[in-house]
């Protein structure tokens, strides 16, 4: 459609209703979203967590990976203790290496959220491309790609990720690769389902009549209309990715010790848990739970709103 260049006041008049429909749709979406108190609260919590993670170097009381600022005498202090000259309060206690648990959580959140966002974005794009191609070309291409998806989905993601990481080794980049591999198939399936509906609509026919190339039709015309269901999956998958990364790091095949995520912190605290030094493990665990649950609640509500069956 964008090949047709319109000028003059008629064009502006013609374009205006479309814009109004867009804004009113957006307004309706916002209005529907704020109708659920739980969803609003979880969104706020999530945004706070993201802000805390991004701002960690500036807001955390201590840089937990600057060895010079650690004093081994402060190791395993209970929550609320102060350091020896009273200049710093360890609100959530300290761990076995005298790190402030609160600072470690803020830094750990950075790694966890980074891994989650990057892997979900990549899986989203790869999956959407596969799904759109399968839906658009149909036939053998569709059958082949969807068998691939079925096969991928028939294996538990934790098992696939474990084996992949066993082969690739540790590292933030490797965890991201493993997470992309286990997640793309969900997006591919959803994108295909959405694109099959869109494929038969008039605007696609119009676009093909204008002899636009197939990738242009797919990305510029079909893809934008498939985004809502994919967004729902992306949100829920983000929680899944963060939880999976935490699990992998807990099992010792995830991120390296130098860039600990929340899962790594929990794993480090686990050895102290049985001796009653609960805070090293407990608070990172609570932070992880808050992030994962709030993302899930946001996703749950998004699904209710964006479900096409609910549209009037």
């Amino acid at each position, binding site marked *: 459609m964008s090949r047709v260049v319109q000028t003059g006041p008629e064009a502006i008049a013609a374009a205006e209703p479309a814009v109004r429909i867009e804004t009113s749709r957006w307004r309706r979406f916002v209005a529907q979203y704020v109708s659920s108190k739980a969803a609003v609260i979880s969104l706020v919590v999530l945004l706070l967590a993201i802000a805390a993670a991004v701002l960690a170097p500036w807001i955390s009381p201590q840089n937990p990976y600057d060895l010079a600022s650690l004093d081994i005498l402060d190791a395993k202090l209970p929550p609320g203790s102060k350091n020896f000259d009273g200049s710093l309060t360890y609100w959530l206690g300290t761990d076995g290496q005298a790190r402030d648990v609160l600072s470690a959580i803020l830094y750990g959140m950075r790694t966890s959220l980074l891994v989650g966002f990057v892997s979900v974005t990549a899986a989203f794009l790869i999956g959407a491309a596969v799904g759109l191609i399968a839906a658009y070309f149909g036939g053998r291409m569709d059958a082949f790609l969807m068998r691939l998806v079925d*096969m991928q989905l*028939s*294996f*538990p993601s*934790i*098992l696939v990720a*474990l*084996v992949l990481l*066993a*082969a690739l080794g540790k590292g933030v980049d490797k965890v991201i690769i493993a997470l992309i591999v286990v997640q793309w198939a969900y997006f591919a399936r959803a994108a295909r389902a959405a694109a099959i509906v869109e494929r038969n609509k008039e605007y696609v026919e119009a676009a093909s009549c204008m002899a636009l190339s197939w990738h242009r039709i797919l990305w510029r015309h079909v893809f934008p209309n498939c985004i809502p269901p994919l967004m729902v999956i992306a949100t829920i998958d983000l*929680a899944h990715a963060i*939880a*999976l990364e*935490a*699990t992998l790091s*807990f*099992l*010792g*095949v995830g991120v390296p010790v130098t860039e600990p995520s929340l*899962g790594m912190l*929990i794993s480090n605290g*686990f050895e102290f*848990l*049985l001796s*009653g030094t*609960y805070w090293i*493990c*407990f608070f990172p*665990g609570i932070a*992880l*739970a808050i992030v*994962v*649950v709030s*993302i*899930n*609640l946001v996703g*749950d509500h998004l699904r209710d709103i964006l479900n096409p069956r609910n549209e009037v």
Partner: protein
Amino acid sequence: MIATIVRRLLQTGLVVLVMSALVFAGLYLIGDPVLMMASPEATDLEREAIRRNLGLDRPLWEQYFIFLSKAVQLDFGNSFLTGESAMHLIIERMPATLELATLAMFISMVVGVPLGIYAGLRPESLLSRGIMSGSVLGFSLPNFWVGLMLIMLFAVMLGWMPAGGRGPVETFGPIELSIFNWDGLRSLMLPALTIATAKCALIIRVTRAATRECLPQDYIKFARAKGLNERRVLGVHLLKNIMIPIVTIGGLEYGQVFAFAVVTETVFSWPGMGKLLIDSIVNLDRPVVVAYLMLTVVFLATLNLIVDIGYTLLDPRVRLGGAA
């Protein structure tokens, strides 16, 4: 009906074959076993001899064929660590995982189905909303996290149950089970609860959705119109119909628990197959990893097949519909 089963059998065989090729290819890509087995001082000539001895100089397809024919005989080589047959090591650990998975699925069914039916019958009540919010928690919280919290609460703070290990077992021939022993059951309880938390959440959701779909159907109205008491309407007419999706999901999940048990078994040092897998991955004990993967592939594929066929038998619409 028979044609459907045969076709599904062939499909399952194909999936297993493709997966075996993938596992083999992955094995081939990971690295050179000769470098790991030969001493660092070995000369090229000695390495070449090892390579020939192991048959690694033959063409790839021939190696794959040997791998397959050995795999059919359940021979995946010996563990690098203990020298025992990899298959034997896994089979030895199987009862521990089996009883864990069975108890976990049992708990989640017994708790999940009634809660799900209740939430489906009274979707607006406060309790139903509580159940549904609880189920969001249940499946969004990572498994190891739930395990840790249970350890903290029941093992460290209350001291009711041990924090890990398997406890005493009863032996039945070659099989050791702890489920029939009070102390054994106590150490089985926490890991089983950990897995059940996640699975129960899923069962609740499936049951609730199925109940809500079933309730407005004519046969429920008719059963009520006949004057049957509520217990019979729910216990017979409703339950029979919602069991189809529940059995399907439950069966598939039972298979997934074997994989999920990897995490739970590690948290609780439960000596099952999952713990063995993690230990083997950490120790680069390749034969055990391969044997475990192949076994899981065959197991999951077979389970899918059984669920599919069971589905056909349970649902007369599918059974009598013929080719579908």
